[in-house]
């Protein structure tokens, strides 16, 4: 929330006259990904290794000391931490995130299998967040300091104050159990999922696969499963968008050019729609980058609450099994994803608003 407010003026740094074009900006911004990912991976590695090795943590109690030592030597955990660290970094640069301890799967394979689920959920939620947040924020700015504005502000705070898993619980209770409109959880019914998985060239994104079959029962089943998780996760972000649009609209409404238009006799409603609205939307794109990080965190909880089989759900499973190699791998992967989305968002912001480039 403070984040949203402080991040609004992206132009502050862009004063250098004539410095670098868009291409240069993109290049510099792209190179900045490397230290970010590097720091996060390093941090995660050392945090997880300070206390011990993953094998003792997951199966330590069940093995004799000799067996444990053998397992450790086999996996290379008896070597100095620094050696292991450099080896790990080397592996990551070749795209190898390691194998899980409990079911011995490639972590990059887990990404391919479950990442699509998380991607689907995050996109649905973004749609919900934008569809709810922007119009309501506009309305709040329009009715500023009146009853609707006050109510919407409380709504926005409630969106933020409600943990996604509690929202999930309430939604399930009301819409699945009491009203029976939507299924309780999962990404699709078992029968639907079976059909979708068998499609040749299955993308893993259920809705695309369902659309390709063109069967309405499949499409509606997939959509029905998506509604509650998307609303639970989307509302979290909707509150942020609502506040941001409101604050920015109020800000742009007091700019000189809007005053000028007002003095020419342009009506308030038209001022809001035509003059102040679009500039107020630009900061949303900037903030979206940060929202993606928040949403990924929220996705872990949402997926767990709804049994939505995505990366977050899988992460929670491995957490429960104390498989810290898997946890470390998935967290490192997510760090890469967050860094890449932030990069994409920054480039997008630079394309739209030339002042951002520096």
């Amino acid at each position, binding site marked *: *929330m*403070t984040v949203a407010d402080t991040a609004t003026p992206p132009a502050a740094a862009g004063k250098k006259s004539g410095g670098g074009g868009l291409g240069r900006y993109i290049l510099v911004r792209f190179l900045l990904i490397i*230290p*970010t990912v590097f*720091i*996060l991976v390093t*941090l*995660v590695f050392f*945090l*997880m290794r*300070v*206390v011990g090795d993953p094998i003792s*943590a997951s199966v330590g109690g069940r093995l004799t000391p000799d067996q444990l030592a053998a397992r450790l030597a086999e996996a290379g955990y008896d070597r100095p931490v620094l050696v292991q660290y450099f080896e790990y970094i080397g592996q990551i640069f070749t795209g190898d995130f390691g194998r899980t301890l409990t079911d011995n799967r490639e972590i990059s394979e887990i990404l391919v299998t479950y990442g699509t689920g998380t991607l689907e959920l995050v996109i649905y939620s973004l749609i919900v967040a934008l569809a709810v947040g922007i119009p309501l924020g506009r309305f709040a700015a329009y009715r500023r*300091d009146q009853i609707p504005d*006050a109510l919407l*502000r409380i709504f926005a*705070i*409630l969106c*933020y*104050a*409600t*943990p996604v*898993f*509690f929202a*999930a*619980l*309430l939604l*399930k*209770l009301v819409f*699945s*159990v*009491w009203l029976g409109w939507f299924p*309780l959880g999962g990404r699709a019914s078992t029968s639907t999922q079976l059909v979708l998985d068998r499609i040749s060239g299955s993308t893993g994104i259920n809705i695309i696969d369902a659309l390709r079959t063109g069967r309405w029962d499949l499409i509606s089943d997939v959509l029905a499963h998506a509604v509650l998780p998307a609303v639970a996760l989307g509302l979290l972000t909707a509150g942020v968008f609502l506040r941001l649009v409101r604050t920015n609209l109020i*800000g742009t409404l*007091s700019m000189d050019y809007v005053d000028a238009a007002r003095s020419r006799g342009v009506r308030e409603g038209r001022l809001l729609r035509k003059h102040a609205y679009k500039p107020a939307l630009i900061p949303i794109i900037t903030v979206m*980058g*940060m929202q993606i*990080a*928040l949403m*990924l*965190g*929220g996705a*872990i*909880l949402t997926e*767990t*609450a709804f049994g939505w089989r995505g990366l977050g759900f899988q992460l*929670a499973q491995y*957490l*429960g099994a*104390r498989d*810290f190699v898997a*946890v*470390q791998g998935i*967290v490192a992967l*997510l*760090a890469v994803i*967050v*860094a890449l989305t*932030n990069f994409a968002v920054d480039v997008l912001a630079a394309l739209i608003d030339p002042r951002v480039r520096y």
Partner: protein
Amino acid sequence: MSVPTDDHSSVPEPVESSASDTDPVATGQARQREPRWKRLPVVWQLRRSTGLQRGMLIAGMVLCAVFLIAAVFAPLIAPYGFNQLSDAGGNFPRQGAPSAQFWWGTTVGGYDVFSRVVWGAQTAVLTVVLAVVLSIFLGIALGLISGYLGGWLDRILVTIADAIYAFPSLLLAIVVSIMISGGESGFISGILAAAISITVVFVPQYFRVVRAETVRLKAEPFVESARVLGASTPRILSRHVLRNATRSLPLIITLNASEAILTLAGLGFLGFGINPTAASEWGYDLNRAISDVAGGIWWTGVFPGAAIVLLVLGITLVGESLNDLSDPRLRIRRRPKRVPRRTATAMKGAA
């Protein structure tokens, strides 16, 4: 709730004339000698507020007070212990509906929901206070040093803080919680683990704010003159920079306190909080309650969930009001829209 912990550092005390004379934020009104308690953060803003903003601030403070009371007097308020499964009348029922004996019913494990919610307030408040205090100290110290000394240390710290800042905080908290406790812990160690996990996430935020302020203050005449007079770096930092750099912190503290509660609950929900027998934790109770929902059992989840929402709501309301009252863009512009009579009283209240 956690605001008062920062009283000493956030209030611009007029101990030192050079610092307060060049004080960039404080207005003429603030310089008038008022009784000291009236200049404390929340009290000061409460006295300046009017209308809706005042209502929000008071509502938030009341909510916070309720939870604070529940936390402090939990042993007196809760009819049963948080891990009590039976009393003289035999074992508690499992998933029992709300009744005269169990006001909010019992959980799938046979605990009394009302008691666990009340005890949960204690866990939440303790964790949040610890987390906020820890991150304030670390964040301010690092921010001051990094901003004032500059150089390579500054660059490294800023890069690390930015990297952490961009990362999903829950993931980071999970990793730290694994590091500290291996994921399972008792009351004290659990609260400590949760608090430190949250601290790691929040330190970068305080760091950024304090560092930015320090970099700005470093060039102010009063700091320069202190340096010319031969004051040592620690003295300049503690007497001249710190007092002025921490002005915006009460606001961040309230926002962070609410985020800390959500992070704690998130950790608990994923099974990485505090052991259910060691302390009561709302997030863990909600995790257990998710599967109850399918059977239409609502009381195990709704009450702890509502507790989280209300406490976060209360803290956020306080924080929001502080933000509005300290931001002239949001505060002053209200006045012309109000009827003149209101404006007059608002002016009088502020003077």
